[in-house]
């Protein structure tokens, strides 16, 4: 009876511990090299000459102008895209109409278009050589190489973010609650504020966070339309590029560190939202 194999105490639906730990190590190592190392590099390079030098480079006039411009762009484009996202999600999930899948594809389109091509589209439409752009410039409202063009380019690349987060959540929630509220005599706005909004607030917040992170960090599309005028149309990412190309490493990485901090805050909030949502989900599944 010596050919009976020794009993193994591993479940049949698990990998051997050696395999498991090899895979975990590969995952940790891969993320350490690919993701954590660049993140650490940003802060290490920013602080290469001490924190005083980093802070001093941020107090520079052009850096301050870039920060102000980036905040202005986000303050305009994020609320507009949030409004669009809510309207689009309401239209798509509360009504039945032909061509819905096509409409969703069109909304997702900016994700498949290169940011540089997006910028190019804006230049061709509103540039001084175009029909509309020429007229607008004659009226004294230049779009390209000015704030409106940068806002348009930013809105193009961040266009789907909020709608994309809201649509699946609102599909899952269905229409019954809204219909009940309407039956009880609530007005449309009241239904939205007191029934729909509380249900979608976390998805909305998450979509706005992602949209904001991308709006402040957009480079390719903005590089094409901004004209890169120092102190006027140079956003934070554009200023980072200019400083880097002038070998002002500490200044470039200090601005980069600010944007990296924004990314970290975004991810932290996202993780917090997920933990919170997991709790809410578990609570709603409880009998």
């Amino acid at each position, binding site marked *: 009876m010596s050919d009976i194999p020794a009993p193994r105490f591993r479940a049949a639906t698990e990998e051997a511990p050696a395999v498991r730990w090899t895979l975990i190590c590969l995952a940790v190592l891969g993320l350490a090299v690919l993701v954590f190392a*660049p993140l650490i590099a940003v802060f290490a390079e920013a602080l290469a000459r001490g924190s005083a030098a980093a802070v001093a480079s941020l107090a520079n006039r052009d850096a301050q102008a870039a920060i102000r411009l980036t905040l202005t762009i986000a303050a305009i484009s994020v609320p507009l895209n949030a409004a669009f996202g809510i309207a689009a999600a309401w239209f798509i999930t509360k009504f039945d109409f*032909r061509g819905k899948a096509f409409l969703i594809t069109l909304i997702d389109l900016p*994700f498949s278009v290169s940011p540089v091509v997006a910028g190019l589209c804006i230049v061709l439409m509103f540039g001084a050589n175009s029909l509309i752009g020429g007229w607008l410039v004659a009226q004294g409202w230049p779009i390209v190489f000015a704030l409106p063009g940068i806002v348009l380019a930013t809105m*193009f690349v961040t266009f789907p973010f909020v709608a994309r987060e809201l649509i699946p959540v609102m599909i899952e929630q269905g229409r019954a609650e*809204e219909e009940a509220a309407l039956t009880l005599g609530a007005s449309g706005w009241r239904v939205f504020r007191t029934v729909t909004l509380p249900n979608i607030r976390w998805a909305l917040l998450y979509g706005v966070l992602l949209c904001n992170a991308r709006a402040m960090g957009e*480079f390719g599309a903005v590089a094409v339309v901004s004209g890169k005028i120092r102190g006027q149309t140079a956003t934070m990412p554009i200023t*980072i590029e200019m400083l880097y190309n002038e070998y002002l490493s500490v200044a470039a*990485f200090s601005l980069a560190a600010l944007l990296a901090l924004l990314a970290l805050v975004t*991810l932290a909030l996202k993780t917090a939202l997920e933990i919170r949502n997991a709790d809410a989900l578990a609570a709603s599944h409880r009998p």
Partner: protein
Amino acid sequence: MGKPLIHRSPIPGLGLSMGITLTMLSLIVLLPIGALLLKGASYGIEGIWQTVNRERVWAALFLSFRLSLFAALFNLVFGLLLAWVLVRYRFPGRRILDAAVDLPFALPTAVAGIALTALYAPNGVFGALARDLGWKIAYTQWGIFIALVFVGLPFVTRTVQPVIEEIEREVEEASATLGASRAYTLRHVILPMLTPAALTGFALALARAVGEYGSVIFIAGNIPLVTEIAPLLIVIQLEEFNYDAAAAIGIAMLLISFAMLLAINLIQVWSRRRIGHV
């Protein structure tokens, strides 16, 4: 024509939500893309072909696609591994790892670009290591590959993770009961279930990599015919106010993007038919 265009609904806000949606979609996305297509139509397929059919343009397009494909393939394998580890295994630091997967989405591309260059340049931490081994990474095609891997990293993991979470243990138990080894179960039971999601993630990573600009230009070196990517070529043409050439290359890239979008949709239709849901 039995179906009405829009069904009647008791829910209010149809006009308002449809108006905002279609107006903003047209103004922000469709009209600008239309302007590009119109520009292309104005000098025809012949004109576009003459601009695109130059050695430098072909080299850039070929480089962008080849390296994007390699990067997306790397991300397909590593993304599957990462998704499996994050869903199935419990170990300290798992949540931090899970959050870190999204960093390439949240970190601005220009920031990623200069950070990767600082690491992989000959005087950087990894670059010095590679130099000692006689290997140059930054300012070569390897540098572009690494930047494209970085920007495409989250796609496969994020599309595959929810599918792994939904796999019912009974399926694996049944397979094990019937005498399959763990490796056989993973290969013939689990992997086919993940294929549609993994392919979608792969296509998304590929589409993102082809159009990527910010994270690549710093590390690429941008030598014509060798390390010059297609989006950079558009920027160069625009800086020389050569709008026609920029538009021609832009249309070529746009058509390629549309083709990939179509492929993603076909994959989803195919997988829905095969599995019943996505």
